[in-house]
């Protein structure tokens, strides 16, 4: 029973982070209409930035969120403005080619990271990295808990932006009907570029929150790209609330898989769920939850 509870709590906590990763992917998918196959690689950039801030300047990863996330946001703006937007503007170029472009972007980011930081594993050992909080017989990792709380704050902030501001409404409008949004005076180019920046910033933030508990190496990204994709499909394409549900389901499923089957199967569990959802629930959780 304790093992069960422990696993469940851990799964929920990691699920909160996955939700942030998934929402970023979902926003990009909604507005650009493509899957961003550089998603995890952009997260990796955020992690290296925070690692640099920690190693060379002694800035705590949670503090460096305020420095690194804006930088990742700008990276996203740069990438979408100069690499994706030119493809979007040419009507003769199919969306598939933008997806290929994101693959290319991802590969370049990984190789740049390898060039600058080598393939060595890095980690950020803070004073609290291995601290835990005991709740009866259950222990919760402190950085995990902090990450969860910040993830929730980020998610709430993002929803506030999406639901209550003109910018957020413009993003949703563009995702729902680009032509109609244009007629409302919304520049879809501006919104597209901004959305890729926001999605990048979000996944970068998630990466930094993982940093105190995770090893960092240039190839850390691709598995998170896959996770983000799984979460998006699981949640129902284009639904931020679905992405939260999808993130939590994936987090819990993975942790149970790791605990009760084998650690090595953790990532495989996600892919199994992915296939099951595609076959049995093609509309994702959105379809079940009616959101």
């Amino acid at each position, binding site marked *: 029973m304790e093992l069960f509870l422990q696993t469940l709590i851990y799964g929920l906590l990691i699920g909160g982070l996955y939700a942030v990763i998934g929402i970023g992917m979902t926003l990009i998918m909604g507005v650009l209409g493509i899957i961003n196959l550089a998603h995890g690689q952009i997260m990796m950039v955020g992690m290296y930035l925070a690692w640099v801030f920690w190693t060379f300047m002694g800035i705590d990863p949670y503090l460096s969120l305020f420095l690194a996330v804006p930088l990742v946001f700008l990276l996203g703006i740069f990438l979408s403005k100069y690499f994706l937007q030119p493809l979007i503007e040419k009507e003769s170029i199919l969306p598939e080619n933008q997806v290929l472009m994101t693959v290319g972007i991802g590969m370049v980011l990984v190789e740049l990271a390898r060039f600058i930081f080598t393939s060595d594993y890095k980690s950020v050992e803070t004073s609290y990295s291995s601290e835990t909080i005991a709740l009866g017989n259950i222990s919760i990792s402190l950085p995990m808990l902090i990450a969860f709380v910040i993830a929730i704050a980020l998610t709430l902030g993002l929803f506030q932006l999406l639901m209550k501001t*003109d910018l957020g*409404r*413009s993003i*949703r*409008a563009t995702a*729902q*009907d680009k*032509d*109609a*949004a*244009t*007629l*409302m*005076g*919304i*520049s*879809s180019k501006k919104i597209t570029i901004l959305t890729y920046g926001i999605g990048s910033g979000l996944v970068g933030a998630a990466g930094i929150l993982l940093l105190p508990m995770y090893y960092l190496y240039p190839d850390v990204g691709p598995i998170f790209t896959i996770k983000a994709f799984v979460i998006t499909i699981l949640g129902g394409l284009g639904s931020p609330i679905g992405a939260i549900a999808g993130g939590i389901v994936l987090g819990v499923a993975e942790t149970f898989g790791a605990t009760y089957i084998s650690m090595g199967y953790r990532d495989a569990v996600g892919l199994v769920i992915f296939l099951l959802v595609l076959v049995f629930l093609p509309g994702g959780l959105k379809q079940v939850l009616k959101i």
Partner: protein
Amino acid sequence: MLKVNNINMSYGDLQVLWDVTFEVRKGEIVVLVGANGAGKSSILKTISGLQNVSKGTITFEGENVSNINPSEIIKHGIVHVPEGRKLFNEMTVEENLIMGALHGEAKEKRNETIEECYLLFPRLEERKKQLTGTLSGGEQQMVAVARGLMSKPKILMLDEPSLGLAPVLVQDIFNIIKSINKQGITVLLVEQNVQSTLTFCDRAYVLENGKIVLEGTGQELLNNEHVKTAFLGI
């Protein structure tokens, strides 16, 4: 006010507008009529910049607005309520209205204009928190027109606002268009209800295969033999 001069327009290789010329004067209600596929919607899309002219010019209040970026057109006071409503179906009625008022004066007066829209369409006030995707067709059409009004248009271009509505509702929508016009908003209307629109419009143009073939006041066209056989079935 709005002058369309000898424009040609094509979708890729397919030319659909040929040398189209017409104008809308301040305060008028002007109607474009024509069979399915004649190019009525294409004209509105060209005016709002969603399509580019390959020849000719479009001017609005003396300013050249041909091939304008479509996200800029609304700032000139030209508001296009497109065919098929094109609402944001996963947003509430109120949010859809807000989307009409994102810029300039329309944004400043947003709350006032929302109240005016609710006076005009009390039905929408009752349903302001409902997602537009779940509204009836008639209610959706009201949202589309109201969202257009939210932009504080100088000219409102309506593409088949009566599409799919029951005859009583059609009459309601036409009455609302008339009252909008009385408030000083110029109207360019595309309609299939030729008989009733010709009775209340100021002037009309008949479009066939992408060309203007007839023009005149509503009354003139109602009495025109060609219009009678082609559109009125008499």
